[in-house]
């Protein structure tokens, strides 16, 4: 079964919320998952790995200390990929990725940082080189090469500018996650739905006049 990218985005948002993320970071999780999917990567599996991690509650609230070339976790635990990704984007105007570039302490499910690297590469018009715990890839504004995601385990990330031009490739228009992946997202999303009650059924959608037409 294939899914529309908007279905992926909508379900990812609810699943992230269901796993305890704020709506703000759930919005980010949804966009990041859609971006990965649109580049032919299994964004849904990547998000599921984060949301079902036994450490998700701690990762969600992990805090960073930021120095120009090194980002660290304040408590030595792995960082949240959504917080790292958004912080990268928020600092893109002043990021110095020349030379050895930027080193970031281990990040949980680090593949979810890649959409933000894509966003920066697109904005800068410059490809980036990203090393995630030895999984090296090149990133442009529309592609990640090789088109594979790193393992979900916490891994340090290093980013720097690159000169390697990438074949833009064809955007993927549909998602084909494993059924179990989709089912997990649906299970998490279900936590955002209120239980059905007779009162809610009668009043919540406002059927105040009889339907006699």
């Amino acid at each position, binding site marked *: *079964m*294939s*899914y*529309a*990218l*908007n*279905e992926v985005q*909508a379900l990812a948002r609810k699943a992230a919320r269901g796993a305890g993320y*704020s*709506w*703000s*970071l759930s*919005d*980010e999780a949804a*966009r990041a998952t859609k971006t990965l999917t649109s580049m032919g990567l299994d964004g849904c599996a990547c998000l599921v790995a984060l949301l079902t991690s036994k450490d998700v509650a701690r990762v969600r609230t992990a*805090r*960073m200390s*930021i120095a120009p070339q090194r980002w660290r976790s304040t408590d030595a635990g792995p960082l949240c990929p*959504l*917080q790292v990704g*958004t*912080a990268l*984007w*928020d*600092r*893109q*105007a*002043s990021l110095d990725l020349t030379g050895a570039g930027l080193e970031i302490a281990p990040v949980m499910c680090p593949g979810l940082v890649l959409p933000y690297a894509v*966003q920066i590469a697109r*904005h800068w018009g410059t490809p980036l080189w990203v090393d995630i715990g030895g999984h090296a890839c090149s990133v442009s504004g529309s592609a990640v090469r090789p088109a594979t995601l790193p393992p979900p385990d916490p891994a340090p990330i290093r980013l720097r500018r690159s000169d390697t031009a990438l074949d833009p490739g064809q955007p993927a*228009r*549909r998602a084909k996650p494993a059924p179990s992946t989709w089912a997990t997202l649906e299970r998490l999303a*279900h936590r*955002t*739905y*209120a*239980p*059905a009650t007779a*009162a*809610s*059924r009668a*009043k*919540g*959608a*406002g*059927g*105040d*006049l009889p*339907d*006699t*037409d």
Partner: protein
Amino acid sequence: MIQDKVKSPRRDPARVMRLKRLGSFHQSRLSFMRILTRRMASEAWTVSRPVRDVDARGVGRAVYQVEATGRTYSLVAFAHDLPDALRSDRVIAEAWDATFALFDGVPTDADLDRLEGNVPKQEAGRVSETELTLSRANRSVRLWAHVVDALAQGRQPDAAHLDDVGYLMRTTAVYGSGKFGAADRETIADRPEMQAPFQAEMLTVYLIRTFVRDLVCHMARAKGGAQAVDLAPELAARLGIGNSTGLGMAPFIVNHPVLFNNWIMVREEALARVRAVETPDPAAIALFRDLLGRGMASVAGWHSAHPIQIEKLTALRKDLDRLWAQVAAADWNAPYPWDTLVAWSEDALSEEGQEYLASLLLEPYGDLVDGLADCLADPISDDMGVDGAMRLDALAELLRDGYGWALDLDWDAPKTCARVWYTSEEKLEPRLAERADEDVAAYEQPLAPARDATALYRAMSDWPGTSTVADFLLLHPEHRSAVRRAQFLTFAPYAEIRDNTIAHDMLPIDMLRAKLSFFGATRFDPRSDRWVRIAMYSGAPYPEDLAPSTADHWVFPS
């Protein structure tokens, strides 16, 4: 002559974006239905019916094929025999009188079989990337039987009865953009005929209306045999398609702030352009007066049993009488008479009348405003990131400008946070609860942007104004979406509703009507404070009569 000079700027968002005013909006020539019919006529699209396999009980399938410029779209329709007891407008319904999908291209028999296995199930089925929309409709029980019986007996149905109901079937949802597996909007957004918002949905409804007319005639023939007659064209033309819209539409305009801004800003820009006309052409004045008279006749036929709407309709009719008198006495030799008329309306008319006038003023000026239809879509905001380099003092100024009315409210006061928007696990129906009475706060959807903006503003108060958004969000990531929305206001001044969307006295129907007016809906008939029935395409020409001469002013009965 039309002058380049802009005498009046666009109206202030603080005035336009109040819920009471948004809930008084009317269709205009920039409404999505009218953009579609103009294009269909100007590009001479043709409609045919290659498949009609419907039995005497009205059960079966049909295909309506549209040849657009260089592309074919096909409405695939399934007609069912629905017991009366199962007929419901709610999302939680599970069966309908007719179900539809808009197919991108020409469906094969295998496609039709696949769709027959899924489309009648609606939300419980799956469609694919070759389908652009998924929809369903129910008969108007009181009108359907009357029309079939009359036609079967060889006579035309009672015109007053037709006008009273206004439609033979009403749709209860038209899903697009990736819902239930359909193609994403992004896959069609670069086609010229699909660039404006909701064009696939509007085409679906236009074709459904044709299907419904054909079906009622088919049923009459099946019942009456040789003595049956077809529905007279002049009667058929008066009928629209009904639509029942519930709470699900309200979150849409909150969740798509830049898109909603574009709709409002286009209309405001169009109005500003017309107000800047120094000396109107006599033909423009004549057309305006003609359409005002025809519009008054149309509004006279709108009905509602809901107290709020009865009051609004009464005000609108009174407003239109006043407007008629004002126009009759206007000095057309004075400069900028349209601007003078708008300025007069702001004191003399209710919001209903003011907004009716604002829409009507666009009618004579297609050459001036129709090109704005290209600015209605929002291809950019989903990919836009937060501006992390913005200083907090600049963000605070944006917040004061866009949400100033909200920043001093006590958001913990029961009346201020009285409502909770949530999604029920029952078919994911969107619902609204009283916070004090129902224990659903844990499921609250983020649909109170002003409350979120206030929380952001207060959280920033301890920070120096020279700090950056990036530094603030590093410690407060939960405010990111509120920052993003506030930053949209730098280029999208009409992005935010400037009212409390969880207040005790908030009327969801105001949000529904704002959106439906841009679709081109008429005959607003709220059935409670949270769902509304409307008509679409009332008066529109059917495909065989659609031409440049008929494509534009069909909203106004002649």
